[in-house]
Protein backbone atom coordinates (compact mmCIF):
# COMPACT_ATOMS: atom_id res chain seq x y z
CA UNK A 1 0.00 0.00 0.00
CA UNK A 2 2.86 2.35 0.71
CA UNK A 3 4.35 2.10 -2.77
CA UNK A 4 1.11 2.69 -4.66
CA UNK A 5 0.21 5.65 -2.47
CA UNK A 6 3.61 7.22 -3.06
CA UNK A 7 3.20 6.77 -6.86
CA UNK A 8 -0.21 8.44 -6.82
CA UNK A 9 0.92 11.33 -4.63
CA UNK A 10 3.97 11.96 -6.81
CA UNK A 11 1.80 11.91 -9.95
CA UNK A 12 -0.65 14.41 -8.48
CA UNK A 13 2.14 16.79 -7.43
CA UNK A 14 3.83 16.59 -10.85
CA UNK A 15 0.54 17.17 -12.67
CA UNK A 16 -0.35 20.19 -10.54
CA UNK A 17 3.11 21.62 -11.18
CA UNK A 18 2.63 21.16 -14.93
CA UNK A 19 -0.72 22.92 -14.80
CA UNK A 20 0.88 25.74 -12.84
CA UNK A 21 3.55 26.23 -15.46
CA UNK A 22 1.52 25.78 -18.64
CA UNK A 23 -2.22 25.83 -18.41
CA UNK A 24 -3.28 28.08 -15.58
CA UNK A 25 -6.02 30.50 -16.49
CA UNK A 26 -6.77 32.24 -13.25
CA UNK A 27 -6.92 35.78 -14.64
CA UNK A 28 -8.12 36.49 -18.16
CA UNK A 29 -4.72 37.71 -19.30
CA UNK A 30 -2.47 34.84 -18.19
CA UNK A 31 -1.02 32.88 -21.11
CA UNK A 32 -2.43 29.40 -20.77
CA UNK A 33 -5.09 27.25 -22.31
CA UNK A 34 -7.19 24.67 -20.58
CA UNK A 35 -8.38 22.30 -23.32
CA UNK A 36 -8.01 18.59 -24.02
CA UNK A 37 -4.77 18.66 -26.02
CA UNK A 38 -2.81 20.48 -23.34
CA UNK A 39 -4.24 18.39 -20.52
CA UNK A 40 -3.36 15.13 -22.27
CA UNK A 41 0.20 16.39 -22.85
CA UNK A 42 0.33 17.25 -19.18
CA UNK A 43 -0.77 13.78 -18.16
CA UNK A 44 1.87 12.16 -20.39
CA UNK A 45 4.64 14.41 -19.06
CA UNK A 46 3.59 13.86 -15.45
CA UNK A 47 3.42 10.08 -15.94
CA UNK A 48 6.92 9.92 -17.43
CA UNK A 49 8.40 12.02 -14.64
CA UNK A 50 6.62 9.95 -12.02
CA UNK A 51 8.09 6.76 -13.42
CA UNK A 52 11.60 8.21 -13.49
CA UNK A 53 11.55 9.47 -9.88
CA UNK A 54 9.52 6.81 -8.20
CA UNK A 55 10.69 6.67 -4.64
CA UNK A 56 12.63 9.87 -4.20
CA UNK A 57 10.07 12.48 -3.22
CA UNK A 58 7.37 10.82 -1.19
CA UNK A 59 9.13 8.04 0.64
CA UNK A 60 6.25 6.89 2.83
CA UNK A 61 8.43 4.95 5.18
CA UNK A 62 8.19 5.13 8.90
CA UNK A 63 6.83 8.37 10.38
CA UNK A 64 7.47 10.73 7.49
CA UNK A 65 5.15 13.45 8.78
CA UNK A 66 7.27 13.87 11.91
CA UNK A 67 10.38 14.27 9.74
CA UNK A 68 8.59 16.84 7.58
CA UNK A 69 7.48 18.90 10.57
CA UNK A 70 10.92 18.85 12.18
CA UNK A 71 12.61 19.82 8.91
CA UNK A 72 10.98 23.28 8.73
CA UNK A 73 12.92 25.02 11.55
CA UNK A 74 16.04 23.31 10.25
CA UNK A 75 15.54 24.89 6.81
CA UNK A 76 15.04 28.31 8.44
CA UNK A 77 18.32 27.92 10.36
CA UNK A 78 19.99 26.84 7.14
CA UNK A 79 18.92 29.99 5.26
CA UNK A 80 20.40 32.14 8.01
CA UNK A 81 23.66 30.20 7.72
CA UNK A 82 23.80 30.97 3.98
CA UNK A 83 23.73 34.71 4.69
CA UNK A 84 26.48 34.33 7.31
CA UNK A 85 28.58 32.30 4.87
CA UNK A 86 28.42 35.03 2.25
CA UNK A 87 29.32 37.78 4.69
CA UNK A 88 32.32 35.73 5.76
CA UNK A 89 33.54 35.21 2.18
CA UNK A 90 33.00 38.91 1.43
CA UNK A 91 35.14 39.85 4.44
CA UNK A 92 37.94 37.52 3.34
CA UNK A 93 37.86 38.66 -0.27
CA UNK A 94 37.85 42.40 0.40
CA UNK A 95 40.43 42.45 3.20
CA UNK A 96 43.78 43.80 1.92
CA UNK A 97 45.77 41.01 3.58
CA UNK A 98 43.37 38.11 2.71
CA UNK A 99 43.47 35.91 5.86
CA UNK A 100 43.23 32.30 4.65
CA UNK A 101 44.33 29.04 6.27
CA UNK A 102 42.85 26.10 4.36
CA UNK A 103 42.80 22.63 5.86
CA UNK A 104 41.16 19.26 5.12
CA UNK A 105 39.36 17.48 7.99
CA UNK A 106 37.50 14.19 8.36
CA UNK A 107 34.79 13.17 10.76
CA UNK A 108 32.11 10.56 11.31
CA UNK A 109 28.37 10.98 11.78
CA UNK A 110 25.60 8.65 12.95
CA UNK A 111 23.55 9.25 9.77
CA UNK A 112 23.10 6.33 7.38
CA UNK A 113 20.17 6.86 5.02
CA UNK A 114 20.53 8.47 1.57
CA UNK A 115 18.34 11.48 2.20
CA UNK A 116 20.03 12.35 5.49
CA UNK A 117 23.50 12.16 3.94
CA UNK A 118 22.40 14.38 1.05
CA UNK A 119 20.96 16.98 3.45
CA UNK A 120 24.18 16.91 5.44
CA UNK A 121 26.43 17.34 2.40
CA UNK A 122 24.34 20.25 1.09
CA UNK A 123 24.26 21.90 4.51
CA UNK A 124 28.04 21.63 4.88
CA UNK A 125 28.48 23.29 1.49
CA UNK A 126 26.18 26.15 2.48
CA UNK A 127 27.74 26.77 5.92
CA UNK A 128 30.42 29.45 6.39
CA UNK A 129 33.72 28.18 5.11
CA UNK A 130 33.31 24.45 4.41
CA UNK A 131 32.72 22.31 1.30
CA UNK A 132 32.11 18.54 1.29
CA UNK A 133 34.67 16.56 -0.70
CA UNK A 134 33.75 12.92 -0.24
CA UNK A 135 31.07 10.93 1.53
CA UNK A 136 31.29 7.28 2.55
CA UNK A 137 27.79 5.82 3.05
CA UNK A 138 28.73 2.76 5.10
CA UNK A 139 30.32 4.46 8.07
CA UNK A 140 28.93 7.96 7.55
CA UNK A 141 32.37 9.49 7.12
CA UNK A 142 32.74 12.98 5.60
CA UNK A 143 35.91 14.52 4.13
CA UNK A 144 35.55 18.30 4.25
CA UNK A 145 37.69 21.20 3.02
CA UNK A 146 37.60 24.23 5.30
CA UNK A 147 38.81 27.69 4.39
CA UNK A 148 40.03 28.45 7.92
CA UNK A 149 40.97 26.29 10.87
CA UNK A 150 38.66 28.15 13.21
CA UNK A 151 35.63 27.57 10.97
CA UNK A 152 36.09 23.79 10.99
CA UNK A 153 35.68 23.69 14.74
CA UNK A 154 31.83 23.73 14.86
CA UNK A 155 31.79 20.68 12.61
CA UNK A 156 34.41 18.50 14.19
CA UNK A 157 34.42 19.43 17.86
CA UNK A 158 30.97 20.83 18.69
CA UNK A 159 28.99 18.80 16.13
CA UNK A 160 26.03 21.12 16.07
CA UNK A 161 24.95 20.14 12.59
CA UNK A 162 25.11 16.41 13.21
CA UNK A 163 22.96 16.72 16.30
CA UNK A 164 20.37 18.83 14.47
CA UNK A 165 20.14 16.42 11.56
CA UNK A 166 20.00 13.38 13.80
CA UNK A 167 17.08 15.06 15.53
CA UNK A 168 15.31 15.74 12.21
CA UNK A 169 15.79 12.31 10.68
CA UNK A 170 15.60 10.38 13.95
CA UNK A 171 18.83 8.50 13.32
CA UNK A 172 20.84 9.45 16.35
CA UNK A 173 21.81 6.99 19.00
CA UNK A 174 19.07 8.09 21.35
CA UNK A 175 15.90 7.64 19.34
CA UNK A 176 16.61 5.22 16.53
CA UNK A 177 13.67 3.12 17.61
CA UNK A 178 11.55 4.09 14.58
CA UNK B 1 16.38 59.69 0.27
CA UNK B 2 19.61 58.88 -1.45
CA UNK B 3 17.89 58.19 -4.78
CA UNK B 4 16.43 61.68 -5.05
CA UNK B 5 19.89 63.16 -4.96
CA UNK B 6 20.95 61.45 -8.15
CA UNK B 7 18.17 62.45 -10.49
CA UNK B 8 15.14 64.67 -10.07
CA UNK B 9 12.76 61.83 -10.89
CA UNK B 10 14.14 58.26 -10.73
CA UNK B 11 12.17 55.39 -12.20
CA UNK B 12 12.40 51.72 -11.44
CA UNK B 13 13.77 51.05 -14.95
CA UNK B 14 16.89 53.02 -14.00
CA UNK B 15 17.45 50.58 -11.14
CA UNK B 16 17.07 47.68 -13.60
CA UNK B 17 19.61 49.27 -15.93
CA UNK B 18 22.10 49.80 -13.09
CA UNK B 19 21.71 46.19 -11.94
CA UNK B 20 22.26 44.98 -15.50
CA UNK B 21 25.45 47.01 -15.88
CA UNK B 22 26.80 45.76 -12.54
CA UNK B 23 26.14 42.15 -13.47
CA UNK B 24 27.89 42.65 -16.82
CA UNK B 25 30.91 44.07 -14.99
CA UNK B 26 31.05 41.02 -12.75
CA UNK B 27 30.79 38.70 -15.78
CA UNK B 28 33.78 40.47 -17.37
CA UNK B 29 35.73 40.08 -14.13
CA UNK B 30 35.05 36.36 -14.07
CA UNK B 31 36.19 36.03 -17.70
CA UNK B 32 39.68 36.79 -16.43
CA UNK B 33 39.67 33.48 -14.62
CA UNK B 34 38.38 31.64 -17.69
CA UNK B 35 41.31 32.91 -19.73
CA UNK B 36 44.03 32.64 -17.11
CA UNK B 37 43.11 29.67 -14.87
CA UNK B 38 46.06 27.30 -14.64
CA UNK B 39 44.03 24.09 -14.46
CA UNK B 40 41.08 22.94 -16.55
CA UNK B 41 38.83 22.80 -13.49
CA UNK B 42 39.38 26.53 -12.95
CA UNK B 43 37.87 27.19 -16.34
CA UNK B 44 34.93 24.81 -15.74
CA UNK B 45 34.15 26.50 -12.44
CA UNK B 46 34.27 29.98 -13.98
CA UNK B 47 31.98 28.86 -16.80
CA UNK B 48 29.43 27.58 -14.28
CA UNK B 49 29.59 30.91 -12.44
CA UNK B 50 29.12 32.84 -15.69
CA UNK B 51 26.14 30.61 -16.50
CA UNK B 52 24.40 31.53 -13.24
CA UNK B 53 25.08 35.23 -13.76
CA UNK B 54 23.73 35.05 -17.31
CA UNK B 55 20.48 33.58 -15.94
CA UNK B 56 20.02 36.65 -13.75
CA UNK B 57 20.98 38.96 -16.61
CA UNK B 58 18.33 37.37 -18.84
CA UNK B 59 15.62 38.01 -16.22
CA UNK B 60 16.77 41.66 -15.98
CA UNK B 61 16.67 42.03 -19.77
CA UNK B 62 13.19 40.54 -19.83
CA UNK B 63 12.03 43.23 -17.43
CA UNK B 64 13.82 46.00 -19.34
CA UNK B 65 12.09 45.12 -22.60
CA UNK B 66 8.70 44.95 -20.85
CA UNK B 67 8.22 41.25 -21.60
CA UNK B 68 8.68 39.62 -18.19
CA UNK B 69 7.12 36.38 -19.41
CA UNK B 70 10.59 35.75 -20.89
CA UNK B 71 11.44 33.94 -17.61
CA UNK B 72 10.87 30.49 -19.13
CA UNK B 73 14.08 30.74 -21.13
CA UNK B 74 16.42 31.45 -18.18
CA UNK B 75 14.80 28.54 -16.34
CA UNK B 76 15.78 26.19 -19.17
CA UNK B 77 19.28 27.60 -19.41
CA UNK B 78 19.84 27.18 -15.66
CA UNK B 79 19.07 23.46 -15.97
CA UNK B 80 21.33 23.10 -19.02
CA UNK B 81 24.21 24.83 -17.27
CA UNK B 82 23.86 22.61 -14.20
CA UNK B 83 23.82 19.37 -16.19
CA UNK B 84 26.79 20.51 -18.30
CA UNK B 85 28.92 21.22 -15.24
CA UNK B 86 28.09 17.80 -13.76
CA UNK B 87 29.00 15.99 -16.97
CA UNK B 88 32.38 17.70 -17.36
CA UNK B 89 33.23 17.09 -13.68
CA UNK B 90 32.34 13.41 -14.00
CA UNK B 91 34.49 13.08 -17.11
CA UNK B 92 37.51 14.71 -15.46
CA UNK B 93 37.16 12.49 -12.42
CA UNK B 94 36.84 9.16 -14.17
CA UNK B 95 38.54 9.61 -17.54
CA UNK B 96 35.48 8.27 -19.38
CA UNK B 97 31.74 8.74 -19.15
CA UNK B 98 30.71 5.10 -19.37
CA UNK B 99 32.55 1.85 -19.96
CA UNK B 100 33.13 1.12 -23.65
CA UNK B 101 31.16 -1.76 -25.10
CA UNK B 102 33.59 -4.55 -26.06
Amino acid at each position, binding site marked *: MGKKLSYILTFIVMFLFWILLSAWQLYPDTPGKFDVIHISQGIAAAALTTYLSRRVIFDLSKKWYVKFLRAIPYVAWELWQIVLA*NLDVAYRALHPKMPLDPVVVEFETPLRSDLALTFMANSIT*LTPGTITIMVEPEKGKFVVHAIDRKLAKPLVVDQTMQKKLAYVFMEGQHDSSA | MLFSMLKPHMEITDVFLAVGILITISILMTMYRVIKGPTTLDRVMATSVIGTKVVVLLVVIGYLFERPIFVDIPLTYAMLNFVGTLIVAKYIERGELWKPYT
Partner: protein
Amino acid sequence: MEALHIISAIFMFAGCFFMITGAIGIIRFPDFYTRLHAAGKCDTLGEVLIILGFMIYQGLSFLTIKLFFLSFFILLANPVGTHALIKAAYVTGVKMWRREENG
Protein backbone atom coordinates in the same frame (compact mmCIF):
# COMPACT_ATOMS: atom_id res chain seq x y z
CA MET C 1 8.91 55.49 -6.58
CA GLU C 2 6.74 53.90 -3.96
CA ALA C 3 7.82 52.04 -0.86
CA LEU C 4 7.57 48.64 -2.53
CA HIS C 5 9.93 49.77 -5.29
CA ILE C 6 12.46 51.02 -2.77
CA ILE C 7 12.47 47.71 -0.87
CA SER C 8 12.89 45.84 -4.14
CA ALA C 9 15.76 48.11 -5.18
CA ILE C 10 17.52 47.49 -1.84
CA PHE C 11 17.34 43.71 -2.36
CA MET C 12 18.64 44.03 -5.90
CA PHE C 13 21.59 46.18 -4.93
CA ALA C 14 22.48 43.83 -2.05
CA GLY C 15 22.47 40.92 -4.51
CA CYS C 16 24.70 42.87 -6.90
CA PHE C 17 27.13 43.59 -4.08
CA PHE C 18 27.46 39.89 -3.29
CA MET C 19 27.97 39.04 -6.95
CA ILE C 20 30.74 41.60 -7.38
CA THR C 21 32.41 40.43 -4.18
CA GLY C 22 32.29 36.88 -5.47
CA ALA C 23 33.96 37.94 -8.71
CA ILE C 24 36.68 39.77 -6.74
CA GLY C 25 37.21 36.61 -4.68
CA ILE C 26 37.55 34.47 -7.80
CA ILE C 27 40.29 36.76 -9.10
CA ARG C 28 42.20 37.22 -5.83
CA PHE C 29 42.28 33.85 -4.10
CA PRO C 30 45.50 31.83 -4.52
CA ASP C 31 44.26 28.28 -5.03
CA PHE C 32 41.50 26.27 -6.76
CA TYR C 33 39.77 25.11 -3.56
CA THR C 34 39.56 28.59 -2.06
CA ARG C 35 38.31 30.05 -5.34
CA LEU C 36 35.56 27.44 -5.39
CA HIS C 37 34.48 28.61 -1.94
CA ALA C 38 34.02 32.13 -3.26
CA ALA C 39 32.32 31.00 -6.47
CA GLY C 40 29.85 28.52 -5.03
CA LYS C 41 28.60 30.53 -2.10
CA CYS C 42 28.51 34.14 -3.29
CA ASP C 43 26.94 33.26 -6.60
CA THR C 44 23.99 31.42 -5.05
CA LEU C 45 22.99 34.04 -2.51
CA GLY C 46 23.50 36.98 -4.89
CA GLU C 47 21.24 35.39 -7.42
CA VAL C 48 18.54 34.49 -4.89
CA LEU C 49 18.52 38.06 -3.55
CA ILE C 50 18.20 39.65 -6.99
CA ILE C 51 15.33 37.37 -7.98
CA LEU C 52 13.71 38.04 -4.60
CA GLY C 53 13.85 41.74 -5.48
CA PHE C 54 12.05 41.00 -8.74
CA MET C 55 9.43 38.96 -6.93
CA ILE C 56 8.71 41.83 -4.55
CA TYR C 57 8.44 44.25 -7.49
CA GLN C 58 6.00 42.04 -9.38
CA GLY C 59 3.57 41.57 -6.51
CA LEU C 60 1.35 38.54 -6.25
CA SER C 61 0.80 37.09 -9.72
CA PHE C 62 1.40 34.16 -12.00
CA LEU C 63 4.93 35.28 -12.78
CA THR C 64 6.02 35.37 -9.13
CA ILE C 65 5.63 31.63 -8.75
CA LYS C 66 7.79 30.97 -11.82
CA LEU C 67 10.48 33.27 -10.47
CA PHE C 68 10.27 31.50 -7.10
CA PHE C 69 10.85 28.14 -8.75
CA LEU C 70 13.81 29.51 -10.67
CA SER C 71 15.49 30.75 -7.50
CA PHE C 72 14.63 27.55 -5.62
CA PHE C 73 16.19 25.44 -8.35
CA ILE C 74 19.40 27.48 -8.32
CA LEU C 75 19.51 27.33 -4.51
CA LEU C 76 19.47 23.53 -4.67
CA ALA C 77 21.59 22.98 -7.78
CA ASN C 78 24.62 25.19 -7.14
CA PRO C 79 25.95 23.30 -4.06
CA VAL C 80 25.67 20.00 -5.94
CA GLY C 81 27.74 21.41 -8.83
CA THR C 82 30.30 22.78 -6.38
CA HIS C 83 30.62 19.41 -4.67
CA ALA C 84 31.08 17.60 -8.01
CA LEU C 85 33.90 19.96 -9.02
CA ILE C 86 35.75 19.74 -5.73
CA LYS C 87 35.53 15.95 -5.70
CA ALA C 88 36.98 15.82 -9.23
CA ALA C 89 39.84 18.06 -8.10
CA TYR C 90 40.60 16.04 -4.97
CA VAL C 91 40.63 12.69 -6.75
CA THR C 92 42.73 13.99 -9.66
CA GLY C 93 45.27 15.53 -7.29
CA VAL C 94 45.11 19.31 -7.65
CA LYS C 95 47.64 20.90 -5.31
CA MET C 96 46.36 22.64 -2.20
CA TRP C 97 47.76 25.94 -0.96
CA ARG C 98 48.73 26.00 2.69
CA ARG C 99 49.66 29.07 4.63
CA GLU C 100 53.39 29.08 5.28
CA GLU C 101 54.53 29.36 8.85
CA ASN C 102 56.39 32.61 8.32
CA GLY C 103 53.31 34.50 6.99
